[in-house]
């Protein structure tokens, strides 16, 4: 096993592209180290990207925010501008693991781990976030939702690293929110979850909506029909009922140790409704 701590993204990409055996990228390590200790993986090469300049910063850009790949989730919670613009994304990131884990784990790692239950991913998808991917043939920017393609699998190719997550500036009269269901109060994995991002007009009518569900299918679900149920309406009970029904129907969950299909469907609808109510209030509705 080789451990290397490159100083540039180009070196990191080069190492990964040239690796002959199995390789892994180390940022916070909150998934990788646990899997290694459990004996599930034993990579031949570990590339630690924490020393790469710029990756540990949250930058405000002309379009919004660029969150470096090694920024710990706890740091997102300390950024007042980010919290103000994207409270739902930040609250999702701050639900991962425990306080101690949040000091290490990153939203990029959460995305690349490709768990259907990842907390930050539905919130990022609802927010329309993008991922900047550096690779042997240069850089490309893709929607966050295009990264996971199945449990534990991503669309990234050999040598590719996600350098940063991009969030736009939040539009006026907009708000986002994220909720998950866990049987405990903390330190748990989502049984099912919902991220919602809404934009309103001056009268409180919803003009844009994105509703994403987690742990409801092999990958995060962006539920277009749910958005349609909300757009052009104020947040009335009928709209919320329709939203819940659509979300429950859109789920393709499994029966497992964490919950049943029936439970996940019902609770997906409940969480979508509750998250939408919060997002609507944050957008200044009512």
């Amino acid at each position, binding site marked *: 096993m080789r451990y290397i701590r490159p100083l540039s993204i180009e070196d990191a990409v080069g190492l990964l592209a040239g690796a002959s055996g199995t390789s892994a990228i180390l940022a916070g390590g909150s998934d990788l180290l646990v899997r290694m200790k*459990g*004996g599930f993986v034993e990579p031949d090469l570990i590339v630690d990207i924490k020393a790469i300049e710029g990756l540990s910063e949250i930058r405000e850009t002309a379009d919004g925010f660029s969150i470096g790949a090694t920024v710990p989730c706890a740091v997102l919670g300390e950024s007042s501008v980010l919290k103000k613009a994207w409270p739902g994304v930040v609250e999702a990131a701050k639900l991962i693991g425990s306080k101690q884990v949040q000091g290490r784990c990153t939203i990029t790692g959460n995305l690349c781990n490709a768990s259907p239950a990842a907390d930050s991913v539905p919130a990022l998808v609802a927010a329309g976030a993008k991922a900047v991917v550096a690779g042997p043939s240069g850089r490309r920017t893709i929607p966050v939702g295009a990264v996971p393609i199945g449990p534990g699998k991503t669309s990234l190719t050999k040598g590719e690293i996600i350098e940063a997550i991009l969030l736009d500036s939040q539009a006026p009269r907009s708000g986002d929110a994220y909720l998950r*269901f866990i*049987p*405990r*109060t*903390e*330190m*748990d*994995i989502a*049984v099912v979850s919902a991220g919602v991002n809404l934009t309103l007009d001056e009268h409180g009518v919803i003009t844009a909506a994105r509703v994403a569900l987690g742990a409801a299918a092999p990958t995060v679900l962006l539920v277009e029909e749910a958005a349609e149920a909300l757009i052009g309406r104020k947040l009335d009970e009928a709209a919320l009922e329709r939203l819940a029904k659509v979300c429950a129907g859109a789920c393709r969950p499994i029966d*497992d*140790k*964490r*919950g*049943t299909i*029936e*439970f996940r469907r*019902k*609770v997906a609808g*409940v969480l979508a409704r509750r998250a939408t109510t919060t997002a609507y209030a944050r957008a200044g509705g009512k």
Partner: protein
Amino acid sequence: MNFDPRFSGRKFSSVGTRPIRPDGVDKVTGRARYGADFNMAGQLVGRVLRSPHAHAKILKIDTSKAEKLAGVKAVITAADLPDLTDGDSAMYDVLDNCMARTKALYDGHAVAAVAAVDARTARQALKLIEVDYELLPHVTDVDEAMKHTAPLINDTLFTEGLEEKPVKPSNVTKRSQFGHGDVHQGFGHADFIVERSFKTEQTHQGYIEPHACVASVSSDGTADLWVCTQGHFVYRQHCAQLLGLEASKLRVTSSEIGGGFGGKTHVWAEPVALALSRKAGRPVKLVMTRDEVFRASGPTSATSIDVKIGARKDGTITAAEATLRYSSGPYAGTWAEIGAMTAFACYKLDNVKTVGFEVLVNRPKTAAYRAPSAPMAAFAVESAVDELAKEIGMDPVDFRIKNAAQEGTRSSYGPVYGPIGIGPTLEAAKTHPHMKAPLGKNQGRGMACGFWFNFGGQTCVDLNIGMDGSVSLAVGTVDVGGSRASLSLVAAEELGIDYAQLKAVVADTSSLGYNDMTDGSRGTFSSSMATISAARNAIKILRDRAAQTWDIPVDDVVWENGHAIAKGEKYGNLAALSLKEIAAASGKTGGPIAGHSELVADGAGVSFATHICDIEVDPETGAARVVRYTVIQDAGKAVHPTYVEGQYQGGAAQGIGWALNEEYIYGKDGRLQNAGFLDYRIPVCSDLPMIDTQILEIPNPNHPYGVRGVGETSIVPPLAAIANAVSNAAGVRMTHIPMSPPRILAAIEAERGG
């Protein structure tokens, strides 16, 4: 010297105070040594290969490739642990559980083990061991296992306790029955009858410290074992028997213990570590992973229980009956029997009958878990009692008070009670402010009672007085809940000295006489009795030495407040001699001063508790939140009240986890799906409210200070109290533990639909 254990009603100066614990600084600074903290020069790493199958014949094990791997120093199978149990079937089961002999009986059953120079080599070696299995059909559910069509787990076992000896083997290894009166006649006199069936899933004690030991066997037949255990003397006996060692040549030292709750009363890894060390000729350290702890240590039974209780309109119970089926893993147990004994122990009943069935399943061998078997029985009975009170239209506390057992009541399991605390805990509940506190939206309140026998047993203590007047206390009961503090208080009380002058340690098996393990809530009860006895023996010597110094008859010397005092007018001018002064002169007055005690602590007083809790249920998700929780329990006498409260809170916390989320989940393949703390959900701090406690003190007549065991009873009522609260909050009777959100939501939906 004869020791009189009877309660004497004395006034206390040390007992009942709350000094800091002697093991506290080491534990919070990390200096304390737990099982995995022992190390020896040349030590190897031991690892165990475990069956991935729930039930399989072991056709062949080929270890040759593993043996050839560089760095591997020993590989063992069952062949390296020959059967020396000489017809002792219980010990044979222990041996077979340590290392499968002909069949793997559950997912996680040990089949081979290696000792290597490091963990990586040991892990690689495990992968090189080839095991040929022939898969057999398996059964993991307790009700399924009872069916005559179920796969047989052991075809040499026939149901015991039946009137006629059965002709066919069965997964039901024993039927037991308790009670008195005539239940049929009793139900005939009832105006109301409640009849319900309940299930509880298997749970684990969830101790934070995994099993760990270091074994070192010498070529001369002596051996040392450092181990995390609740009973190092018992571990010595069992390991010596299984390994063919002489008990006195195996020295076992217990480490600090990061939780046991009954789960560290049985050997699993220790005989394997000793066998590896014997074969390798080097010390071997064996530490279980969390996955191994869940799959291959000793969880509690899963149960299926039917209850029927009848009462008259005035609230008098006329008859009570229960059938209890408890899983015991793949080996015979007595868990249902204990459940059947405890089920109705809180009540005064003319007609009562309980029947227990012990059931084999392809799961790990059941071990004790804090008041083993009682919480599940209490869940079923106290749920039915609550429902019956509701049908009659009586307050649930009043209904229980009306039927509570008292001094002189013949218990449902046979003996007649002495002074007991069930009535007082119920009266205390009735007047507790918690019972009158307003409930919020979607909230419900529940209460329930619980009983535990408590145990005394063989106990030995040494008390040594140093020449500087400080006192060391060597006890043989492992300190699982603050007993070193409690026993120091007791010794300080008897000797009349300050707590700070004492230091209590847990002695190893070569330094002290045999002690039963710390179970049955016996640690403080029995070792305090032996400590009192040892201190009194030391006082006799102290008085002797003072008498010798003064040259007066010893009968004229009394011991008061840490001093020898010459009694009577004629000795008016003699200044009292302090313990310190007598100790300083001991070299010239006859040598070291010590007190010893060896006894069987009989008369552990039974213990009762009443719990109250408020639960809020989210009707849309089934999530349950514990809003408020109160424990009321009889301690006899609380030696160190802070640790008594800690025991009350700890039992309630474990009960809350068990009631709401903890469960072993098996797949159709018979494999455990959630062998880790992520998906086996014990409560985290934020899941719990501050658990309020109230200590009652109804003295145990069989202990000089009135002490009763307090460790276990506190886990008996929570399942029922929480189930009653959830049922009240959700508006539907919950009959399946744990009441996880999917189960609560499904019950609410079913109720809405129906």
